């Protein structure tokens, strides 16, 4: 987006705290754990008295700058804080900390047909809904025909909406909001309703709104809509922004179920992979991704380089290292690499592993390392330690110029090297 475009919305250091009350077990309850009548009464009594207030941060330190004309998607799992963010932006509730500045008029569609009353006719509801969204009577009058056309309600406009089909209801609700034309429009999930034709119409309208220089914020679980409408996408997780940028990338992060893992991690205390306890002989202590940028991305065309250090208690001259990769629904392992004289004495040694990863499809991956003992005949034997998932990396989309972009749904998960074509 044009960096010179003026701001439409600035969210600066915004946090939102909710207080959850939980009943706490009174320490006295221990004395009454028996099942006698008296004990049960005591449990009721003390149980009721002690409630604990716990803070729950629905959003933490959110910073977003949105410029005029941007269409920004917001995605995240349930409970990630999307709805809370929209509620803050639309002034339904206040932030606990931070500041939100808005330039221009803002309208929020957090649900279709807000305030519709079943007893009222379509026409009456249009005026009421318009007023709720901040339009005055003259403005609704002016747009009434447009609303009528868009909703395709036709002659039913003077019928009470309780007799409408759910599709009609939704169409009318969307039509009112769609003609609203505010400077900034906030939409939550509403595109997921109606039949295919109407949905298409809504999307076209959304696109037109964006093209007219209005700013749109779209919260959705429908990735197709995010792809189609958004120029930028924010991924929320546990109340924090974990990604802000290219929609494709955002969707991959969201769909890949991937955590954003650090570039380096201390794993000496980490639990061992797959229930493997590890042995007393050796322990992997730390893990580091070399040559990645601060967003864990491996530069295009580069190899994956991992540095790890392990401390052995006994001399372990012959071991095998193995790199394992998890992500995008697959597990990929490199052949084991036998190393001679790896741990000649007890103590800490560091190694790097370099791995070709060209065949991995773009996205998030977790890294793991397994150490085997080498058997007499030079083959990998018992696993003596292994760690997984402490460090993650990202494969970027390669330059797609002149190529068809990788289509994971149809093409699978591994890119094979280019086929060699010969005349037969």
């Amino acid at each position, binding site marked *: 987006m044009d960096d010179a475009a003026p701001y439409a919305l600035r969210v600066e250091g915004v946090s939102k705290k909710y207080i959850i009350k939980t009943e706490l077990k009174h320490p006295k309850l221990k004395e009454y754990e028996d099942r006698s009548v008296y004990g049960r009464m005591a449990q009721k009594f003390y149980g009721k008295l002690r409630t604990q207030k716990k803070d729950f941060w629905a959003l933490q330190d959110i910073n977003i700058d949105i410029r005029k004309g941007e269409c920004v998607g917001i995605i995240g799992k349930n409970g990630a804080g999307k709805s809370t963010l929209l509620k803050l932006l*639309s002034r339904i509730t206040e932030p606990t900390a931070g500041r*939100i500045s808005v*330039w221009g008029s803002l309208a*929020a569609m957090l649900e279709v047909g807000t*305030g519709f009353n079943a007893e009222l006719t379509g026409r009456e509801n249009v005026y009421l809904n318009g*007023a709720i969204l*901040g339009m005055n009577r003259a403005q609704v009058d002016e747009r009434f025909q447009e609303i009528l056309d868009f909703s395709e309600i036709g002659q039913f406009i003077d019928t009470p909406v309780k007799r409408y089909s759910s599709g009609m209801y939704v169409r009318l609700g969307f039509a009112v909001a769609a003609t609203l034309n505010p400077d900034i429009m906030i939409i939550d999930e509403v595109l997921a309703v109606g039949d295919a034709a109407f949905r298409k119409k809504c999307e076209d309208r959304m696109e037109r709104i964006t093209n007219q220089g209005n700013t749109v914020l779209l919260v959705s679980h429908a990735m197709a809509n995010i792809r189609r409408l958004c120029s930028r996408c924010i991924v929320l997780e546990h109340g924090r922004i974990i990604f802000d940028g290219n929609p494709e990338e955002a969707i991959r992060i969201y769909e890949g179920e991937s955590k954003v893992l650090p570039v380096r991690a201390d794993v000496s205390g980490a639990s061992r992979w797959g229930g493997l306890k590890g042995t007393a002989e050796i322990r992997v202590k730390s893990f580091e991704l070399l040559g990645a940028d601060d967003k864990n991305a491996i530069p295009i065309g580069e190899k994956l380089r991992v540095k790890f250090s392990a401390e052995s208690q006994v001399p372990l001259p012959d071991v095998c290292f193995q790199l394992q990769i998890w992500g995008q629904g697959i597990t990929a392992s490199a052949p084991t690499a036998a190393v001679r004289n790896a741990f000649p004495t007890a103590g800490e040694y560091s190694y790097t592993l370099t791995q070709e990863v060209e065949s991995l499809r773009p996205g998030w991956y977790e890294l793991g390392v397994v150490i085997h003992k080498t058997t007499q005949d030079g083959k990998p034997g018992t696993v003596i330690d292994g760690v997984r998932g402490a460090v993650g990396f990202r494969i970027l989309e390669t330059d797609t110029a002149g190529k068809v972009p990788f289509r994971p749904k149809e093409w699978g998960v591994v890119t094979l090297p280019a086929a060699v074509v010969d005349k037969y």
Partner: protein
Amino acid sequence: MAKSKAPEQYPQGRPTVVIEANGRNGQYWKDLWNYRGLAFLMARRDVTVRYKQTIIGFGWAIITPIFNMIIMSLIFGTFAGFRETSEIPYNISVFVGALGWGMFVRGVNTGAGALAGAGLAGKVYFPRLINPISSVLSSLIDTAISYLVLGLMFVGYGYVPPLRMLLSFPLLLPPVILGLGAGFVIGSYSIKWRDLRSIYPFALTLGQYVTPVAYSAENAANVMQKVGEGTLSLYQMFSLVNPMTGYELAYKWSILTDVQFDVRAFLVSVAWTVPVLWWGIVRFRKAERDFVDIV
């Protein structure tokens, strides 16, 4: 209450809206004005829905005040013996008195109920004061119907109201405002102390008997004197501070020729209204802020 903002830091000028923690929303009152159309539409919705759903529709608005009048007339006029003290038909006195008092009750109920249900509050922003305002507006239709009944009674009893009856319309407003203020306070505290919800209707019923709704000041003096001097002075002491006495008397004065306008009582009522309304709005604003998060 606009907070002084940091010096201009954006090229396109000041933001239209700034949302901050514990924000003193300086434009609340401006918003309230901008959303006035919503108040009217919501009132219309309430009225339409109410009369669409009931069988006799507007009939209820006529039946309720008439029944109310008959009951009060029986209690005060027949049993307490207030009937024969004036030229004006007692039924008219009682009806007018109940109308004025009813405005106060309506205010209290609306105010107390305004914070009870979230409804739209969790879906879209608008100043929440719109809710009680629209409720009061929608109840005006009942008042209009009551006036219709009153007119019929005038004809039936051959009573000619004084010209100052025109003043009775603006005089309906102060008791509503006082009631709203009190209702907001009750409503906001009853979130925490739910018992209040059961207590305040009793207080309202009691108030109806200690305020000159169905009797005049002279009636009261007579009765109290029979009971004893102590009771009379107790009643008079209460009358001095009763916030509704002034409004009730003023309203009755505007329609009934045998009632005197009590300036002192009216000023007492005004003196109550200002702080009560202020307190009520402060409580309401505070409650509406956390409201969505709790419900």
